[in-house]
């Protein structure tokens, strides 16, 4: 197995981008990533998208993006694992390069969500359609039920949930590509429109258009390109029951824990070795539970971790320096690759106003549905 490095990253601005189609989004991110690396030739493409069929009535995304990126006849495949499609696309590219089948691979993710009237319905297809969505359980409702159970079992508070959103909006205000570049307060989160109790609209990630791409190649070739290569040192994925109710403990996300354990083991790292992480904060409660599963906090203490400022930009373990899904935006298929782009920029020292002090090791965690799939990657400065 060959060592692999990220040599280029690029993304569109995230937001309600009325003038962009799905293909416009992907092509802009792809060209930025290729230019960042200084690469013209690629051997193949993997593209993550959750539901281009339901969002814009378009399938066959692999061929479409290869055509419009101007790479005639290259192998290209669409990867889907709901909101973790981007992270899983990254892993498929990684496997292809590590295995020696290809040298230079473009891995990307895209979602065009604002062309449909009912994004909530399309998103609910990532849950168990027959046994959850049919009965009226929306995604906010599923995470709200996790939140309620976590509050009941561990004493997690309403203010701790809100603190995640406040922190991520703070970080997003320093990210020019973020959908919401404004700071908010705990009070504003609690007083915003109720979605699914106890979660308000400011506990939820938004509907977003956007794309992100990365270029990867064998580490031994990586020195030839423009930018400082960032080595991929760990990858891990896991699945869990599709329905939330089938899990023994509603307050844990077992797939997240397993995907992290597998990545830590491959990387030879432990939670204390990680300098910063981009995690899947689709809802505020998700970031709290995920930080526990990643080993940054004891089980049940994730709320305290954020409340005490330990996950802030200047904290012990900065989480979601990009603004996270909450503030940067959540174009579902693009999210996993956008996380990689943020970690690569931080490890290169290119994160501008939100740059943290000299990080060496970064982690990304991206999950699908109510945690039925999760993918974790660990990156290190060479």
């Amino acid at each position, binding site marked *: 197995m060959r060592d692999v490095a990220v040599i280029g990253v690029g993304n569109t601005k995230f937001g309600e981008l009325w003038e962009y189609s799905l293909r416009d989004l992907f092509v802009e991110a792809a060209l930025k990533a290729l230019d960042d690396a200084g690469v013209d030739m690629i051997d193949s493409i993997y593209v993550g998208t959750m539901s281009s069929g339901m969002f814009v009535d378009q399938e066959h995304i692999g061929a479409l993006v290869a055509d419009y990126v101007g790479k005639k006849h290259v192998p290209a495949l669409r990867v889907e694992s709901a909101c973790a499609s981007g992270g899983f696309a990254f892993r498929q590219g990684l496997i292809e390069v590590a295995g020696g089948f290809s040298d230079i691979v473009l891995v990307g993710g895209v979602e065009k969500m604002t062309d449909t009237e*009912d994004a909530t319905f399309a998103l609910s297809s990532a849950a168990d359609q027959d046994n*959850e969505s049919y009965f009226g359980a929306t995604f906010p409702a599923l995470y709200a039920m996790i939140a309620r159970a976590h509050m009941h079992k561990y004493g997690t508070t309403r203010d701790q949930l809100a603190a995640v959103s406040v922190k991520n909006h703070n970080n997003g205000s320093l990210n020019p590509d973020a959908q919401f570049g404004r700071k908010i307060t705990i009070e504003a989160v609690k007083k915003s429109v109720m979605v699914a*109790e*106890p979660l308000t609209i400011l506990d939820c990630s938004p509907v977003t258009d956007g794309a992100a791409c990365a270029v990867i190649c064998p580490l031994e070739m990586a020195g030839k390109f423009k930018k400082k290569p960032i080595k991929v040192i760990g990858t891990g994925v896991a699945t869990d029951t599709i329905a939330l*109710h089938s899990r023994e403990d509603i307050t844990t996300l077992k797939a997240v824990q397993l995907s992290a354990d597998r990545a830590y083991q491959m990387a030879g790292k432990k939670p204390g070795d990680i300098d910063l992480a981009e995690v899947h904060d689709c809802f505020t409660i998700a970031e709290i539970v995920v930080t526990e599963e990643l080993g940054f906090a004891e089980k049940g203490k994730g709320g305290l971790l954020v409340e005490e400022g330990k996950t802030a930009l200047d904290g012990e373990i900065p989480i979601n320096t990009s603004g996270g899904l909450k503030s940067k935006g959540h174009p579902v298929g693009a999210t996993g690759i956008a996380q990689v782009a943020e970690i690569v920029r931080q490890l290169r020292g290119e994160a501008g106003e939100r740059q943290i002090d000299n990080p060496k090791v970064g982690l990304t965690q991206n999950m699908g549905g109510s945690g039925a799939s999760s993918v974790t990657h660990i990156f290190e400065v060479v």
Partner: protein
Amino acid sequence: MSVPKTWRGEKYRYRLEAVKCTGCGKTYMPARAVCPECGSRDFEDIKLPAEGKIVTYSMVHVGPAQMQFEVPYAVAIIELENGLRLTTQIVDTQNKELKIGQKVRMVFRKIQEDGKTGVIGYGYKAMLAE
């Protein structure tokens, strides 16, 4: 919502019919071909108890288009007396406070309709027992 899809769900949605693994005793609804706990492929048919309790819940204020007419509505994970868990709505919750651990019983209700002329979907919901 297709008509055959509705038929396929009638067994469990209308009658709470489930299966019990003969290997480890775990119950599943809908029925499965393989037990994820013990790997057994042998199951016996059972009828689920109608009594259970609330494991967790949320009051939904923004629903999908086909359910927006009934917001706010309560969604919960219910654990039935034999340990099986399912997701459904709790009916008649106006002015009542919901709590984790509260007793409920399963009732038969309309779930959703597919426009003015499409299939009407029925199934189970929960009602507070006390």
